[in-house]
């Protein structure tokens, strides 16, 4: 292994380069573009044997990915925000067909007004498409999750979306441990066979009457739920190659904390600084980072939050008419009555550790009693 200073996008591209990907189909969009540009440059330099399909839209990018995956290829694509939204219909097709496509999504705020900065509403509004969703906090996680995702996707036969915050992660560069060849044994063998067979022609996506449609959907539901257990096994195996651990939720701070800060993505990094500052002030706090959002890690979160008197969810996303999406999911899954949702950082609005500390103290002091926005001129 060697250490390089890489951004999240670089990290994705390097991992794709090392993952024996057969096909990449993609359409450019800021801030994702440098992922597929880099992959294209590896192909142009003859460093990898990957077919790059240029397409005229994100809808077509996913359609091509579906075809290639059905033909037995290992397929990668990347998109962001408006591009992901344009893919929406075909995301359902990929998941419903059980295809192990891996996609990186740069979490960028949705227009209008135009924004290119960080927000997770784009991917969270694809919550019900049947894709496994993972949220990375730093470039090392992004890199590692690409390898883990191909293995998990191929084992459970379900697509996986790896989400990384726009600019705060896609373009922010930091040291990343990169494999040389030692990951080959983990990633080289493709565990996926073609659905399409020229000797045995079949039709896919045919009309299903109600008596067939419903059991097929139940099957899909159960297939996707396997992601939790399979992720754990694959992550254990990955640790043997990398020495690095990955869990579907991760904690930082005092295990028996009185207050838990729950979040996803790059905000989980800043939250660690907040937990440290709260500790200095005598407040026992912990961070609970949700790395796998779909399937929702209900049991793990229940266990993690059982002793917390206060739970505060910091959501860099918003569901109009409801509030923070992770907060809503968490309360829905665990029936919490001690949970405050804080919507923050929309469209890349800065959130620092002092903001998180102040909000946490305001909740503990009873100054914040209901869901709110973290917002103020800086």
């Amino acid at each position, binding site marked *: 292994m060697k250490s390089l200073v890489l951004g999240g996008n670089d990290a994705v591209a390097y991992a794709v380069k090392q993952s024996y990907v057969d096909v990449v189909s993609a359409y450019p969009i800021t801030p994702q573009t440098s992922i597929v540009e880099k992959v294209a440059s590896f192909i142009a330099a003859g460093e990898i044997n990957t077919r790059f399909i240029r397409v005229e839209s994100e809808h077509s990018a996913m359609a091509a990915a579906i075809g290639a995956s059905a033909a037995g290829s290992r397929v990668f694509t990347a998109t962001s925000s408006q591009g992901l939204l344009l893919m929406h219909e075909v995301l359902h097709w990929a998941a419903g067909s059980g295809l192990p496509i891996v996609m990186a999504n740069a979490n960028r705020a949705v227009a209008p007004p135009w924004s290119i900065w960080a927000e997770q509403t784009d991917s969270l509004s694809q919550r019900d498409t049947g894709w496994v969703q993972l949220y990375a906090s730093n470039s090392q996680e992004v890199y590692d999750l690409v390898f883990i995702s191909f293995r998990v996707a191929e084992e459970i036969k379900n697509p996986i979306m790896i989400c990384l915050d726009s600019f705060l992660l896609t373009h922010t*560069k930091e040291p990343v441990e990169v494999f040389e060849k030692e990951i080959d044994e983990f990633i080289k063998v493709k565990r996926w066979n073609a659905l399409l067979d020229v000797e045995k022609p079949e039709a896919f996506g045919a009309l299903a009457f109600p008596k067939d449609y419903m059991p097929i959907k139940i099957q899909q539901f159960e297939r996707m739920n396997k992601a939790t257990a399979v992720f754990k096994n694959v992550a254990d195996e990955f640790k043997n190659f990398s020495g690095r651990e990955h869990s579907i939720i991760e904690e930082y701070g005092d295990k028996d904390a009185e207050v838990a800060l729950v979040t996803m993505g790059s905000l989980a990094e800043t939250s660690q600084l907040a937990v440290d500052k709260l500790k200095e002030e005598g407040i026992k706090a912990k961070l609970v980072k949700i790395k796998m959002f779909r399937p929702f890690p209900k049991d793990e979160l229940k266990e993690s939050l059982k002793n917390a008197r206060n739970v505060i969810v910091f959501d860099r996303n918003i569901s109009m008419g409801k509030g923070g999406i992770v907060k809503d999911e968490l309360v829905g899954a665990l029936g919490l009555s001690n949970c405050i949702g804080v919507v923050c950082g929309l469209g890349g609005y800065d959130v620092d550790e002092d903001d998180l500390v102040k909000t946490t103290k305001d909740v503990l002091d009873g100054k914040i009693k209901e869901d709110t926005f973290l917002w103020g001129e800086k």
Partner: protein
Amino acid sequence: MKEIGLHGRGGQGVVMAGELLANIYFKEGYQVQFMPSYGAERRGSPSNAYVRIDKKRRILNRYSIKTPDTVIVFNITLLNNIVLKEDGLALLNLPLDIEKKPSKARIFAVDANAIALNLNLGTAAMPLINTALLGAYCKISGDFSLDTLKAVYKEKMGKRADLNIQAALAAYESVREL
């Protein structure tokens, strides 16, 4: 932790300089984070990049830098928009000395344009001054060795490294305090 701001105009190699600087610090053994600032940048418009460094801890701050400890100013016309800590350190790309108002800040200047043009780096309209400025910064910060700078230039620039190392050395020798 130390926060460094690099401020110039699109085309001056500000982002490249930030990335080089992060790599130099990393090679020197620091924890680093390079955070370019993206917006409506284009050739000639203000362009900013930031580097955070720490001797020990991995950098966890995922938000923009407001008040850097150190600034490297590629273009003096931007001075009014640049914020620096009260007792900070500034490096300016400047041919002639300007009057320094009394302050706790230490301010240095180097004629990076002349150095770059002497070595045919860039054009008269847009000299490539980023590698020279980092040479001057090496001297005034004392944070890393010239050898580390040279090694990173060689890794990142291939055949063009030698000229850029010459630029860095010239700036290292000629940087002056105002």
